[in-house]
């Protein structure tokens, strides 16, 4: 009887251990899903930064009107940028926090895709992919830094004009607008660099536009 119970416990343990080691996602990831996801985020971010720059120009052009609605529209544009950029900023921060482990996860996913050609190309271009990862990491880090300054500049401008609506046409506010525009354009450049790098990776892996959106 005791031997039977032992055997029963052993079999149960094997079954339970089997369950515990099951992978959270059985199906392999779509080819280039990490590349596609980051490309989509970078493209969205670029669009949002462009929209904020248009709003900034429109606000600058309203100098002399002292209109509350112009300020409200600008304030909404700043809020939009804060909210819509949240996901890409979170990805950038996670990349920085996890470092190489973040990209190792991308590579692991590439090694798990069902498409044999993509897997082989990923193996063959391992070195170049590593270099691309490093450049993306560096561009992302720089972009994140410039974005912080840009957003702070927009918020600072909003507070300045809220305190004194007549200051919109002043020399000091014009300088604030100019600086903010330069920083926004710098963010756009960083995002373009990231997209170019992702395009290069997609080409290395012969991923189609439908797979990456690039």
């Amino acid at each position: 009887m005791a031997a039977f119970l032992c055997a029963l416990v052993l079999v149960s343990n094997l079954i339970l251990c089997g369950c515990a080691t099951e992978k959270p996602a059985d199906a392999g990831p779509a080819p280039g899903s990490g590349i596609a996801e980051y490309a989509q985020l970078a493209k969205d971010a670029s669009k949002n930064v462009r929209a904020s720059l248009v709003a900034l120009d429109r606000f600058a052009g309203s100098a002399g009107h002292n209109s509350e609605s112009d300020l409200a529209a600008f304030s909404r544009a700043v809020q939009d940028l804060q909210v819509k950029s949240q996901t890409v900023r979170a990805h950038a921060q996670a990349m920085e926090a996890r470092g190489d482990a973040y990209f190792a996860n991308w590579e692991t996913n590439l090694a798990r895709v069902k498409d044999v050609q993509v897997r082989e190309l990923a193996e063959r271009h391992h070195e170049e992919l590593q270099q691309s990862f490093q450049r993306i990491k560096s561009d992302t880090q720089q972009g994140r830094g410039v974005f912080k300054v840009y957003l702070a500049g927009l918020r600072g401008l909003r507070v300045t004009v809220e305190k004194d609506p007549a200051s919109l046409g002043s020399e000091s506010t014009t300088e604030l607008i100019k600086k903010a525009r330069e920083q926004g354009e710098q963010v756009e450049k960083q995002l373009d660099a990231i997209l170019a790098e992702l395009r290069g990776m997609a080409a290395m892996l012969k991923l189609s536009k439908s797979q990456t959106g690039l």
Partner: protein
Amino acid sequence: MRIPVKSLCGLTVAMWPVFAGSQPVWPYAPPPPIAAPTTPSAQRNAFNGVKSQVGWLQNSCSTATSYGDGGYGVIWQQFQNLRGAYAGFKNTLTPQQLSYGANEIAELDAGLDILQESFNNYQEDVAAGQSTSSALNNLAQVLSRASGVWLQEFNRDSARLRVGQF
């Protein structure tokens, strides 16, 4: 009267902090921390807890202005509750889920840090001369929408990691 040696040892250990004049020290090792269960039902409960906490946070954002200067504190408290619910949720994930979804978890962590930056923005804007009501309005609007974006990511990542389904 004979005093057992074991009792003397115990007494010495118990009184040592008093003699030594230091802070009392528990003479035994602390018990190991109780690990949260990682069962599917525990995960589902924790997942629902995070979702409803986002709802509470958004609720506090829409009513914050009616609390006057206290509005900031109300939103802050709800945000801390969200952080707590999310930390509890992470404790229910299996080692496999934590490893497989390490990037997603790091992104969700970073997302909460970014939401928290809104509170710093409020402080900076007020210090720069913005009225507290206007700064609070901005904080509430940004946080309400941004927490919704974070929740979408949370839902998507949880589905990817098969939270509560394995």
